[in-house]
């Protein structure tokens, strides 16, 4: 029920605690956190710059979240994605899903991640010893969407 796009870091534990605070109807809470790695493809990464498309980003994330809520019985959901300069080890983004049962919470979290990867307008640029390089989209990310296709949709 919430989407946040921000430059600042977030407190994963506090966000997860807030999702379930004061309620006793949630049976399963799933979280995913994306982190900046200090190396990729054999090259050291000194820093990462995350560019995004203000306005479209919020719309795209809200649409993805609404679709997840239409497909699974979610009691709470959250997407936080950062932009700007990040260093290895830092948190890039998180999603969280809450449901009475574990399968729905897991599936919805994976759905959010798969769509976010290929449909939310973020671009990563890594600073390596050879200079800056834009991260290429992975074919597997686009392919991951296929499993959520619905007949007639």
């Amino acid at each position: 029920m919430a989407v946040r796009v921000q430059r600042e870091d977030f407190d994963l534990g506090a966000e997860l605690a807030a999702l379930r605070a004061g309620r006793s109807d949630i049976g399963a809470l799933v979280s995913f956190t994306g982190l900046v790695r200090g190396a990729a493809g054999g090259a050291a990464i000194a820093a990462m710059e995350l560019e995004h498309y203000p306005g479209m980003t919020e719309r795209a994330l809200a649409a993805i979240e609404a679709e997840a809520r239409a497909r699974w019985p979610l009691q709470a959901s959250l997407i936080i994605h950062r932009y700007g300069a990040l260093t290895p080890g830092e948190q890039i983004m998180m999603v969280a899903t809450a449901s009475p049962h574990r399968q729905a919470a897991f599936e919805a979290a994976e759905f959010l991640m798969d769509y976010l990867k290929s449909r939310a307008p973020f671009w990563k640029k890594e600073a390596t010893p050879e200079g800056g390089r834009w991260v290429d989209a992975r074919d597997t990310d686009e392919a991951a969407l296929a499993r959520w296709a619905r007949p007639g949709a």
Partner: protein
Amino acid sequence: MTLDVLYFAWLRERIGAPSERIETGAATVADLVAELSARGGPHAEAFANLAAVRVALDQELADFTAPLAGVREVAFFPPMTGG
């Protein structure tokens, strides 16, 4: 019609600007791309490989065949890599 054309990631870097306001009679995204490419230079380079370019019309993903009628903002960018 007047369009704001936005560029992100390596398209922004290649074009050398995050956006430009243009007057165009292009009927579709493909027409607009042809018009921009015809300028040559950075624009021609940026659109040399359309398989690596995505487009959004008024902040919604679209196809290159989509009509531009009524559109205010066109954005070009590479495949997304968030998450």
